[in-house]
């Protein structure tokens, strides 16, 4: 191998630099987020917790298409309580703290959904007079 003296230290420096965030954080990925359970004490969601953890974004898209495109606004009953399909109309009725529920995981995983560009979070609603 030619230029062994340059290449091998160069490679080592490269690998260390690329993996530096891992070393910097001491091989830890930070504390796992603990999304807040509904403050109202509701036990059941529209689907199982495992399904929601993996697929809440799929369900939200399905609801969106149902409500906006197919005109299917049939409400959903969970534990005898009726909810209209929608982020503001259903989800946030129980998960009433977006910062402690949605944001805790989204920030951890660096996911930036644009839901709240338009939709009103409970904090938004509390910040102003409502109808």
């Amino acid at each position, binding site marked *: 191998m030619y230029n062994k003296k340059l290449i091998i230290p160069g490679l080592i420096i490269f690998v260390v630099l690329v993996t530096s965030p891992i070393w910097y954080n001491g091989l830890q990925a930070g504390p796992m987020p603990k999304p807040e359970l509904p403050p109202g004490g509701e036990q059941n969601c529209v689907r199982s917790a495992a399904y929601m953890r993996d697929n809440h974004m799929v369900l939200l898209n399905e609801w969106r298409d149902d409500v906006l495109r197919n005109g299917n606004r049939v409400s959903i009953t969970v534990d005898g309580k009726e909810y209209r399909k929608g982020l503001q*109309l259903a989800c946030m009725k129980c998960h009433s703290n977006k910062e402690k529920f949605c944001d805790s995981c989204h920030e951890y995983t660096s996911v930036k959904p644009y839901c709240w560009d338009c939709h009103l979070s409970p904090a938004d609603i509390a910040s*102003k*007079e409502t*109808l």
Partner: protein
Amino acid sequence: MDKQRRKFLKIAGATALAGVSAPAVVKLTSTPSLAASDHGAAAGHGDSHGEEQPTGIRYGMVIDMRKLYGKPELMDKAIEACHSVHNVPHFEDKKNEVKWIWKMPFENVFPDHSVYYSAKIKEENEYFALCNHCDHPPCVRVCPTKATFKMEATGIVAMDYHRCIGCRFCMMGCPYGARSFNWFDAKPNIKKYNPDFSARTRGVVEKCNFCAERLPLGKEPACVEALKDTGAIVFGDLNDPHSELRKILDKEPTIQRKPTLGTKPSIFYIV
């Protein structure tokens, strides 16, 4: 070896022949029902012959301006009701205005109907304008993302703000100026929130949705509800001959905005 080659050539020849003749065969043997539905679809569009066949629900509105002459405060009430229910932002600068229903002078609402010697009452009053929920909506034709579309079940021209990329083709397409673009963030410019409805973000186009979110709850559109005691706006199904709306349309002479464009608006005016 020779035998196999001969077999191959035969199969290849037969396949080529089948491929070439397939369209003709399909055309000749297509079922009459298929042909009929083709014809039906063509007739349904009614581009050249007669009126459309009424099918399904098609929501419409008749605005009786006679009940609103000299009462601009009533019109403001309806506008306010609509805009607050739908979290429509208010911008001072007219250039950035966002509106779902608004007032305009007669010659702007009905440029086709302007005449030299018109009644004074026309000049003294303003007229309601809103999305016409056309049968042939030009905005839907030009939308590159299908963010705006016609709901087949109700005839409402709806918007899916999630898909809107803010290209504003629909604003060019709409001959009624019924669409507004959000140049700025809406939330800081909304006075009161309706917690049951979303706001919009910067960079999307918005317009009247015929209260598609209120109808399934058994409520009438907000503007209709606001003027309920005057009966100035009547909402209903244009395809239902027994609806109050149709009874008015059958009795009273009405006009529409820019009827010559062939968009077939669902909003009718009594002036």
